């Protein structure tokens, strides 16, 4: 296992339960990215197996081996790293969601 793999495993474990965007390897067959809630991960001797409920398919579970995950971006980090597109309001803003005026 490389240091990069260990870091990615730790990153994935830390965001269980959160809404995330996964950047995926082509061989995953699930497209370049997948956004949804990270429901959990099974940690075995041959690596993590991650279960995600895609935001486009409520109730559906997608299972991905972490070898096919290139990067994980949690929802919580998006508001502070740059402008985000709000799919509900169809508006773009550049401040974290928590500080947005209502």
């Amino acid at each position, binding site marked *: *296992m490389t240091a990069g*793999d260990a870091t990615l495993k730790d990153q994935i474990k830390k965001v269980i339960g959160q809404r995330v965007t996964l950047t995926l*390897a082509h*061989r995953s067959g699930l497209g370049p990215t997948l956004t949804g809630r990270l*429901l*959990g*991960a*099974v940690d*075995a*001797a*041959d*690596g993590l*197996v991650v*279960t995600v409920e895609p935001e486009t398919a409520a109730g559906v*579970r997608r*299972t991905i*081996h972490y*070898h*096919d995950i290139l990067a994980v971006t949690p929802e919580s980090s998006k508001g502070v790293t740059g402008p985000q597109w709000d799919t509900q309001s169809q508006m773009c803003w550049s401040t974290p969601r928590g500080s947005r005026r209502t």
Partner: protein
Amino acid sequence: MGYAKPDVLVDTAWVAENLKNPTLRIVEVDVDTSAYDSGHVPGAIGFNWRVDIQEPVRRDFVNKAGFEALLGRVGIGNDHTVVLYGDNNNWFATWAYWVFKYYGHGPVRVMDGGRKKWIDEGRPLVREKPSHPATRYVARDPDAGIRAFREQVHAALGKSGVGLVDVRSPKEFAGELLAPENLPQEGAQRGGHIPGAANIPWGMAVREDGTFKSAEELRALYEGKGITPDKEIFTYCRIGERSSHTWFVLRELLGYGKVRNYDGSWTEWGSLVNVPIEK
């Protein structure tokens, strides 16, 4: 539609309620052979897969006489219902299940979710080892229909009506690793996979708590990769234990008729001279 054989699975609650059921023998089989001694389900017998279920010299699991001696010694009779569980989401528990079926034992169950789920639920662990009266166990002749040897796999290459499932991790399938990432990188001379194999890692068959997915989810997973019930299926991994997990899913949970576990797996195929390999 549910599982083809729903009775092959029991949940942790059922096991907890049946710890003192005299018709049962609970058996733990782990990847980590020290796990049992650190604490196990009360009353569970421990099988060390390396010592108890492997031949000591040649590469094979125990023969019929050895299997009979093992079960007789630990007090498992032909009429006992055997409940298997283990670590790594039942890798070696399903391998042991496959061996029990190879020698024709009737009632065998797997505890869904395995050792980890039992522990996660805060259920008791003990270090005391059980003692049962010895039995005279009689095994059946081996069921050759559930095991594949390299010649059979080689003969099946490229044929229509055949499905190969490589259940290893994507990096093992791609030849970037020779073994699971947390184990020593040994066991085969070459990396890669058997030509035509579909890579469906064993873990795709389980939910986030380690229990098996529903029959509908499993059917969609395998059929979506061309592993359909009309085909003759071969499962393999590195040494045949993870592929037993998928063999269990396809044959027992989905009811596929022709599924063989190639337990020589990649440690054999990846070391053979002049056989085709894909990367």
